[in-house]
């Protein structure tokens, strides 16, 4: 009851924080996609480089978020607030995106690539028209993981001065206000579920029906 009351009384404040939260994730995922998809494509034929890159990604993943933010704020360019927050999220999304792009591109059936080459497609055309469309379902899975993770980790950016739903949780804990903590937690969950649904919808729109059919029939 208290939670609902809190929610109604602070609707504007909560809306603001939610928008802040979404903006932070939005910027982070756009930059992350540009960077990590390109990296995934660049390392697709280079097993050794790929191993190194993927180990670096796992390393980032293993640093606790609060510690990572703590390090980032000491770097002059990043400093407090948004730049550090965005950069931290980009680092965390490295592994799910790069790994899925790399694996998906390499798992394309070699006979399909051979047929494409045998018909006279250039390497660039093969990548754009064959490999990437075929890799899309797996890439989508990676982006989904990255986004849901971002929604959670973003709450910790409040420790470096970001204003988002994490604020409700952090302040609620320090002031032992359960209603605030619950409101924050519920809003974060709703965003996570919403993003999950959105990605599911986009996947249906973008991935070729030929591949989804394949999935329904139990793989290739």
């Amino acid at each position, binding site marked *: 009851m208290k939670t609902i009351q809190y929610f109604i009384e602070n609707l504007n404040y909560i809306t603001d924080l939610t928008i802040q939260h979404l903006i932070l994730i939005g910027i982070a995922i756009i930059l992350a996609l540009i960077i990590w998809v390109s990296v995934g494509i660049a390392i697709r034929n280079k097993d050794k480089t790929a191993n190194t890159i993927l180990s670096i990604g796992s390393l980032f993943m293993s640093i606790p978020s609060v510690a990572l933010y703590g390090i980032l704020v000491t770097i002059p360019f990043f400093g407090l607030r948004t730049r550090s927050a965005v950069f931290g999220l980009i680092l965390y999304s490295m592994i799910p995106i790069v790994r899925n792009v790399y694996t998906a591109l390499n798992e394309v059936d070699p*006979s399909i690539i051979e*047929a494409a*080459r*045998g*018909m*006279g497609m250039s390497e660039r*055309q093969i990548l754009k028209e064959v490999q990437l469309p075929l890799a899309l379902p797996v890439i989508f899975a990676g982006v989904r993981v990255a986004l849901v993770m971002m929604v959670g980790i973003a709450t910790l950016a409040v420790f470096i001065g970001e204003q988002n739903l994490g604020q409700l949780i952090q302040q609620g804990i320090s002031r032992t206000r359960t209603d605030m903590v619950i409101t924050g937690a519920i809003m974060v969950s709703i965003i996570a579920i919403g993003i999950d649904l959105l990605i599911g919808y986009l996947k249906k729109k973008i991935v*070729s029906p*030929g591949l989804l059919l394949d999935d329904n029939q139990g793989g290739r």
Partner: protein
Amino acid sequence: MINLKDISKTYPGESKPAVDNLSLEIDEGEICILVGPSGCGKTTTLKMINRLIEPSSGKIFINGQDAINQNPNKLRQDIGYVIQDIGLFPHMTVAENIATVPKLKDWDQAKIDERIDELLNLIGLNPADTKDKYPAQLSGGQKQRIGVARAMAVDPPIMLMDEPFAAVDPITRTQLQNEFLSLQKKIQKTICFVTHDIDEAIKMGDKIAILNQGRLIQSDSPKNILFNPKNEFVEDFVGSDRSLKVLNLIKVSEIMKKNIPTATTQSSPKEVLDKINDSRQSYILVIDKGEKLIGYVNKKRMKSNSNKNWKENIKYSQVISSDASLIDALSRLIQNNQSILPVTSDENNLIGIVKLKDIQDKIADSYQAESELEEPEVV
């Protein structure tokens, strides 16, 4: 049309060449089969023609032009390529798959659409039903047909086929082979075809090139390969049942008997029995008004059941087309424990019969032919 001159290929890190000084000429409109045990270099040779593999030395001329000096992608767009695993793009519809090379060549969409319909009709699939399907919705045989259609999309004069029918079940394979042979009669492509199956080679080839350890051992017509094997290797590879294999080369139409006695569905039971007696056989084939084959009735059943509607005595019989080889006819006879096989047209009209005995005679003939052919060799 295709001229390979002293081509060799040594893969990096290997001392023995995969293809060793191979020269081969493939004439226009001819199916040339590269055959040999695994690792003999047949696929490497094939892939050097469209430069998926670059030869270490030697020259390749296609239509008189040196293939090595051409842009490899442009070269490949003018050579149809069919592989064992087909490699259809699963994210594209049948129409989009077929449109791949036309799009690379910047055809306009109207021309592409027209060509897709034409090709699908050619390979016996209904364009309206098939066009918008995805590969996952097709059977193995249909996929293989689409693979061939895709390779023919821009009507390339040359087609390379790497074990194209190896991944389907035996019944579908025979069907695809027959379809492809009748298609080839219409399209007259220059085809280089790789297989490890000597029976397929004999059936499909105008010319067979037998390879072993990267070298061309013998290249000749199927008949000469069977009866004039150049050395022991070819003899072993062809197998000891050469005379049986000759049956692959003979069409049903060459030995079938025409003008056979038949009964029609309008005949009375007595007429039917009379006809059986006249023909001195224990059965008679039954056709309808339009000459379509219905089946056969045998004398015993006709006699014991003569009072009833005699048409209930008609039994269904396996049939064969006149284009099929004698080996197909023989296996169908044996499988169904029949001693005769009606030959029908595409419209199921009865045009003749093949008897087991005639096939046996043909085998005996070929034994004789073999000894005649071999005698001068002994000298």
